């Protein structure tokens, strides 16, 4: 190592790579959530599932329908093919592609072709009854397209600064999305203190709640991984612990924050820049997550904890923006 910087990266390019990755992660997350939700509904009476619409909207920070009426058709449309909703799957994939198109010379040809293919596929989809009936095919295609892009990226692009921004975008988005999802579940789940209070959290859930907890795990692609670790006996406390604090599962909050921290340190090394702020913020969040215990979290209010994680993640995002993408020129010229 000479310690000398090898390559130059424009701020605009880094910004585009970061957002491309965030948008794609968002599309994948949304696709998984709706798919799981629609399948869950098949096992439930219409009444049981009605409260979940709002939870889904909350977890995805999506706008409610204008007329206030909400059902499978309207919700699915808003979240997948509605171009006026900037966080629908179609908008996210289009934004990801647009960001990559502006920095095409920075990515490998394979990456561009993969994302372009996904875009063309999503864009050629029209919503109708038949489509809705088989929408799982669509959601699977989106998830697979995103996974393929990630694999192609990892095996065809140099793991240099640009790649680190892609990592950063993906895991910042994932931290925020998974934390928000856990928050939405915990605040709306029908578990209650009347039925045994906090102790009930550490017991196997009853049959009518079972599906809800399976839904949460599957929304994070975590059901199988959870079963391997804890068997199929679902205890709310263990589920929350697994999704928040597990260091090995790629969709847990802790795992994602570890990756954010690692990417930030790598970027700080590569740019030889004093980037104390974002690295410190991510490092502190990482430490919090590695030393937290789930019963303490629950005792002091899980919602509060999840909110604080999201807030710190948001601060890290802002700091990244200010240090690498949109720094004040005056300060730079001073030295």
């Amino acid at each position, binding site marked *: 190592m000479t310690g000398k*910087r090898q390559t*130059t*990266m*424009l*701020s*605009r390019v*880094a910004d585009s790579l970061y957002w491309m990755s965030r948008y794609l992660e968002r599309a994948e997350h949304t696709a998984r959530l709706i798919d799981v939700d629609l399948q869950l509904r098949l096992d439930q009476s219409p009444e049981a599932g009605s409260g979940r619409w709002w939870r889904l909207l909350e977890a995805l920070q999506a706008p409610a329908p204008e007329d206030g009426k909400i059902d499978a058709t309207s919700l699915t449309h808003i979240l997948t093919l509605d171009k006026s909703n900037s966080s629908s799957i179609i908008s996210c994939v289009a934004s990801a592609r647009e960001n990559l*198109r*502006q920095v*095409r*010379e920075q990515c490998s*040809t394979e990456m*561009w*072709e993969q994302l372009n293919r996904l875009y063309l596929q999503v864009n050629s989809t029209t919503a109708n009854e038949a489509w809705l009936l088989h929408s799982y095919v669509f959601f699977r295609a989106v998830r697979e397209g995103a996974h393929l892009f990630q694999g192609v990226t990892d095996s065809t692009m140099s793991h240099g*600064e640009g790649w680190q921004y892609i990592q950063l975008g993906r895991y910042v988005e994932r931290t925020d999305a998974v934390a928000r999802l856990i928050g939405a579940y915990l605040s709306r789940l029908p578990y209650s203190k009347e039925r045994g209070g906090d102790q009930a959290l550490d017991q196997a859930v009853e049959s009518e709640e079972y599906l809800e907890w399976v839904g949460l795990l599957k929304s994070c692609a975590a059901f199988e991984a959870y079963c391997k670790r804890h068997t199929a006996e679902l205890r709310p406390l263990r589920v929350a612990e697994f999704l928040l604090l597990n260091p090995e599962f790629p969709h847990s909050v802790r795992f994602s924050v570890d990756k954010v921290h690692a990417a930030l340190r790598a*970027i700080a090394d*590569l*740019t*030889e*820049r004093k980037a104390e702020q974002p690295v410190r913020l991510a490092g502190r969040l990482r430490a919090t997550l590695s030393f937290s215990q789930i019963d303490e979290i629950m005792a002091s209010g899980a919602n509060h904890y999840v909110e604080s994680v999201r807030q710190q993640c948001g601060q890290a995002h802002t700091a990244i923006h200010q240090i*690498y*993408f949109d*720094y004040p*020129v005056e300060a*730079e*010229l001073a030295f």
Partner: protein
Amino acid sequence: MFEAPGVPRPHYQALFQTLLGLPPEEMRKSQQAADLSFLHQGITFTVYGNDEGTERVFPNDLLPRIIPHHEWRKIESGLTQRIAALNLFLEDVYHRGRILADGIVPRELVYSCRHFRREMRNLTVPRGIYVSICGTDLVRLPDGSFAVLEDNLRVPSGVSYMLANRKVLKKVFPTLFRDYGVSPVDHYAQALLATLRALSPASSTTRHEPTVVLLTPGVFNSAYFEHTFLAQQMGIELVEGRDLLVHDNVVYMRTTAGLKRVDVIYRRVDDDFLDPLCFRRDSGLGVPGLFNAYRAGNVVMANAVGTGVADDKAVYAYVPAIIRYYLGEDPILPNVETYMLTDRLQREFVLENIGELVVKAVGESGGYGMLIGPHSTAEQREEFRQRILAEPRNYIAQPTLSLSRAPCFLDGEAQARHVDLRPYILYGENVTLVPGGLTRVALRRGSLVVNSSQGGGSKDTWVLRA
């Protein structure tokens, strides 16, 4: 291609025989493979004035055009001579103006040119080179010799197609290619980088390895593909105006590691849009303060600002005189005969014979603002007649050329189409011509317009080694 009907010229014989031996099915497959390769690489250009479907693949024709070695030698020396003279002309026009004082080129012609930049007066550019990247359009005269149709001294494009065509042809006809002894063109990007580096300003702190960038108008520009391609091939940053800023007359680019000083800008943005403080105020593509940094000598732009005065179509008529004036030599490559419409006699002749001539607006390029007499309607001719009378300085006329034709593989068979040739000339430490160029083809039967924006295509150009 043919000397007489059915008798190919000697250097086409091998190609001709190979083609005769190939089943048409084979050729069609090769063409499909080539087309697909262009589509996948995203080698496209944008057509303006068309709402939807603006991104198109640049049509490519499989049959190469072949230029024998001795002909290329002449082109090379002719273009070297021409770029040298045009640079001396620009230097003179923006300084003492000797050629104007001596009455060789009329003063009013230069000062009335839309692309003349007062801001460039008495500004010294490195090595006195104004035009360092040039693409000159050549056509064959009826006697078979080459003549210059147009100089492109501002931001000539198309070189990426030359390189892409070659890449595809090497795949499609590997043995033919090898046996022919074709001169390579792949070193163009390296030669371009060397040229740009040679221009680096004296004040640069990093004189040994100056920072060179390519300035693009952005993703919506018709040549965006070429910009990304060249930046990637040269290994330099592709920047937009918003990536650059000027402080104390020094240009910086905004990188993740902080601001980085820029020494040379290969700009693919027109003069008008470079600096909103100096040229068009509504330009969002440029960099405020860029021209002052340029004046201060802290950054070099290639090509220099104001080179358009030398490729004005009315000034073009004087290029042979310009060559004689500065170099004391006869031009190696002739011009195409040109009528100046500011001259009363010539104007009257043109107005009478407009049906047989080509009329061109002097400041336009890309095949826009043009009347091809034999292919025009009475209405169009009347419209141009009025325009000429209103603004004679704005137009020139030339005889309709029967551009030479070359065989193209269309609809499953070889058909003759009109072609021209654009070699690319680089001028840094010395003049470099990559042996080859972009052969543009008018794909419509009988059409004389080869511009990509007007239904033209291109083919590979093989310059033979001996």
